[in-house]
């Protein structure tokens, strides 16, 4: 087979199959919905999409990550039918989009399990994250330098965290991680670390702190007693239509809201 002819044949075959795949892709009558955006909501959206497609096999639901900004942009540009965003305040560009709240998420302040503190006030949180409190003994802890761990600029979790706590800018010494999971790992591996992450991702390797004396629980969030809470939006350009509208409706249905609650977020509709 080692002749250029067969090589050419292989190549032309692959080009042809690409072309046929192209036309097949265009012709397929299956309607589809694409979601893109918030990495915090992405796993939940994937799970819901999986369940939705079991009930409605005729609709294909594709979920992309990328971040809240990607969600807003791709909803604007049409790259996605539905954008996902997890910001307390949507940016000006999102004005053209129609938001629907589908869940709420608590932001928990976390430390290493060996940390003796059990809670912080908003003032103390501000001090830790802007770098004015540099040693845990200033808060009555052990004598160790604080390692601040934060999300990257623009992240929905970080933006919401900074807006709710208010009036500070993050210390330049902060370690930056680009996901909830790595924040958790970093804090779990460093006895003097403090970070924040999505309520649904707490586990035994890290310790959650009370904020102003309130534990981050589903009840506290729903009762409005816990302050670090942000909404999760699905965004569409104009009112949603067709398959996108049907999927959003499903996400707000009792069944989907129950799944959201079981997986660690707080349902938007009770």
């Amino acid at each position: 087979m080692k002749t250029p002819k067969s090589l050419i044949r292989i190549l032309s075959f692959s080009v042809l199959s690409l072309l046929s795949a192209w036309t097949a892709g265009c012709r397929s009558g299956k309607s589809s919905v694409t979601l893109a955006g918030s990495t915090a909501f992405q796993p939940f959206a994937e799970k819901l999409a999986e369940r939705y497609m079991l009930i409605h096999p005729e609709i294909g639901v594709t979920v992309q990550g990328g971040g809240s900004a990607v969600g807003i942009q791709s909803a604007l540009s049409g790259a996605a039918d539905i954008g996902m965003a997890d910001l307390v305040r949507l940016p000006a560009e999102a004005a053209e989009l129609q938001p629907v709240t589908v869940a709420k998420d608590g932001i928990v302040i976390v430390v290493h399990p060996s940390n003796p503190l059990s809670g912080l006030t908003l003032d103390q949180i501000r001090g830790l994250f802007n770098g004015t409190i540099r040693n845990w003994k200033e808060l009555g802890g052990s004598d160790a330098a604080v390692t601040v761990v934060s999300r990257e600029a623009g992240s929905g979790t970080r933006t919401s965290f900074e807006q709710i706590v208010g009036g500070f800018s993050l210390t330049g010494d902060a370690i930056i991680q680009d996901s909830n999971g790595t924040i958790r790992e970093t804090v779990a591996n460093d006895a003097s670390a403090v970070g924040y992450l999505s309520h649904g991702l707490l586990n035994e390797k890290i310790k959650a702190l009370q904020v102003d004396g309130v534990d981050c629980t589903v009840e506290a969030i729903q009762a409005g007693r816990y302050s670090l809470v942000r909404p999760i939006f699905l965004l569409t350009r104009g009112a949603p239509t067709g398959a996108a509208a049907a999927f959003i409706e499903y996400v707000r249905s009792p069944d989907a809201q129950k799944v959201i609650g079981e997986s660690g977020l707080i349902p938007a509709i009770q």
Partner: protein
Amino acid sequence: MIRIGEKTVRRLLMAAAFSAIGGLLLIALFIFKEGLSFFIETGFRRFLFSDVWDPQSGRFGIFPMLVASLWVTLGAMTLGAPLGVSVAIFLVEFVPRSVMRVVKPTIELLAGIPSVVYGFIGVMVLAPFIRSSFGGPGLSLLAASFILGVMILPTIISISVDAITAVPASYREGSFALGATRWQTVRMVVLKAARSGIIASVILGMGRAVGETMAVIMVAGNAVKIPHSPLDSVRTLTANIALEMGYATGRHREALFATGIVLFVVIMILNTAAGVMVRKRVSGKRG
């Protein structure tokens, strides 16, 4: 029919031959298009030499990232260059050819290990080791340098081996005839003759270190600050783009593309330098 084909074939081939340059120009065009206006509006100086990067308040200075990229690359070179060149010398000059024929491909195989895997091992093994032995957060300049230093080894070794092998045997024989030992021959004759090839390998390795993204994000810690010690956490230019791109809108996004422009220019300079070195070697061999 065949004779008519000849001209068509030549034209087609020539068109294909410009695909690489076309791709390069297209990439340059789009990255410059998205980032250049920001670059000009902000000002060359303010963008490159201000050390405040705070997208929320609209302040974009990439000086800490420039410094970090520089240090991380230097660190990687400090480990990778001497180690890689030593291995190359050892394999060509002090080991039977049959051994080299096994070891060199093995090392080149390792160039194929995905960078995320290196990054993951950095997070799981290296960072905890640094944290417990030297203190600091572990995710640091040191960790990034070490991982990158290892990652560029195959590049440096492979190209250096080629350069050293290309030195004509007659050079060595002349030196032996004068009574020099093998090492004296290597030091005074072989390394001199292979110098530009070795330098090219180091420059290409450097290019890879500057451009590596995923492994660095995982192990460097990504703090935006000018490092004061190897144990400090740093953020490189590439990490800056990949970390924030997903969340960037408006000016912030443009600033990231402008970071891409800086990166592009740095890489082009390194490549041109490596190209000049290689050409020197070729013309040197001919002359």
